[in-house]
């Protein structure tokens, strides 16, 4: 069902060439996938609420200039001015943070991931509460599937970072570590 919904929205993007629309007209389309309050309900699509404005500006710029290639996002960001990027980032950063997964987390998995996070210094740049700062994204409460996809992307170089930080961090992390980290971070408030 969800992938059908994404498909419909993407078809809509192509049909209406969002790339020609002003920012205000585009925003509802953004939130159609990323969630009305910036909390995504769709697999592999990140929640944007409370992301640092700097980070959002950087990512939108990377999509606009095709430094990051993800077709729907390249289309969405096409033709935006620098001022649009900043305005969109300001709006998005003020959306409420996503709520963490509310289940009974497996304490063994949480401990394992917490140790990994400390060992690999995730808690330095992303901060102890994983709220992010400047060009470093918020991870707390992010969708688990998206976190896993992003980490795997950094590892196989399909996800380009603004700078070299994440490629250094994932250098000696294994896929099983990504699984645990994504589980843990999706359950942080």
């Amino acid at each position, binding site marked *: 069902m969800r992938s059908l919904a994404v498909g419909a929205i993407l078809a809509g993007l192509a049909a209406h060439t969002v790339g020609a629309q002003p920012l205000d007209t585009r925003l509802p389309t953004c939130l159609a996938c990323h969630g009305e309050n910036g909390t995504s309900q769709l697999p592999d699509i990140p929640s944007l609420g409370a992301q640092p404005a700097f980070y959002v500006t950087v990512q939108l*710029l990377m999509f606009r*200039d095709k430094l990051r290639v993800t077709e729907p996002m390249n289309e969405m960001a096409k033709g935006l001015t620098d001022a649009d990027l900043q305005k969109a980032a300001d709006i998005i950063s003020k959306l409420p943070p996503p709520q963490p997964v509310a289940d009974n987390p497996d304490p063994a998995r949480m401990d394992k991931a917490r140790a990994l996070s400390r060992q690999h210094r995730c808690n*330095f740049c992303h901060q102890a509460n994983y709220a992010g700062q400047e060009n470093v994204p918020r991870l707390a409460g992010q969708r688990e599937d998206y976190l896993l996809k992003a980490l795997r992307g950094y590892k196989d170089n399909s996800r380009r970072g603004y700078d*070299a*930080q994440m*490629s250094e*961090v994932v250098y000696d992390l294994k896929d099983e570590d990504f699984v645990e980290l994504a589980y843990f971070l999706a359950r942080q408030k």
Partner: protein
Amino acid sequence: MTYPSLRQSLVLAGTIGALLGAAWPTAAQQPAPAQQPAPLPPGSPLIGRPDTADAKRLAPVPAPPLAAAADKLPVDKLKAPKGFKVEVYASGMPNARSLALGDKGTVFVGSRLQDKVYAIVDKGGKREVKIIASGLYRPNGVAFKNGTLYIMELSQLSKIDNIEDKLDNPPKPTVILDGLPKDEAHGWKYIAIGPDNKLYFEIGQPCNNCLPPEGYATMRRVNLDGTGMETIAQGIRNTVGFDWHPTSKELYFTDNSRDWMSEDLPNDELNRMTKVGQHFGSPFCYQGNLPDQEFGWGRKCEEFTPPIALMGPHTAALGMKFYTGNSFPAKYKNQILVARHGSWNKTNKLGGDVVLVNIKKDGSAGPIEPFLTGFLENNSYVGRPVDVMVMKDGSVLVSDDWNGAVWRVSAGGNARTAAR
């Protein structure tokens, strides 16, 4: 308030430990919160980062993704010696990095966090910025020779022939060398063409402090058609600036030393290569006299070629050029201007300036003095210098990746008087 002595602390800790032990008999059931994170795997690029609150505050300072508006450039904050003038040469080039000068006066500007190479065209003092290449990956390195622009991306070298005749409709760059390592850490490259007509670049150490794999941390050179790659020096952690002495033709280069050893060590380096094959120390010995805490064991600093000048701890000494122009006071002739991008791995930031390194007749270095300052204000950056270039009129351009701008420093008649 007085602090307990070390001995008292140990006793105290022992008591608490005993109490905890009594309350929770089996450690396995109730793991106490780990005091130290697990050590990183051998060779991890993150090794050396201490897990302390003060260290946590330090991370690379991200460059703004957008260029500063022309009316927001901090031109009034920059200071040069008496009699020199500082002005904006051109702006609106996000993440402006390395500089190269065309025969017809075009200034080419590479970028690291953007996909673009820019060209600044001067038409009677009015300057226009054009994007001459885009869709590139980390196009940090630019060089120019005999009409051709060379562009170095993360892992490939390309060129555009007769670029200055095609600035409004440039063809896509033609790749002449590819397959270089794709490591992101210290993977962006500076390039320059030597007096031997070869193009020089470095394969950086792909980590903060590690034993680099074979072929890394080396200076290389290739012919201008991309063939004949040679390794000519090793033990270079990350150089982002080099130039050749105008008379001795020896290669001088900056090198950024490792992070996280301490607030005040090691210094970044200014090096001089006197023969092919020299080893400049990384990761065994930094700044010529400081064995690395991990890789220095069993080695001696005497095994390696020491730097000729220490550029300050963590200051990120990047682009450098011998001053070969004629309009600055005589004392500048054949001395080196070095752009220090400024530190991140230091609580009280250092650098964020262009300094003048005195080079003596024998090629060694003398005192270092400030040249262009003011990029660092109240421990924050208002700009960050990256590369330096001498123009035909003797003025000096300085790129700034924080503002996406290029600055021009020129000397009036009173600069020459003041320097006497």
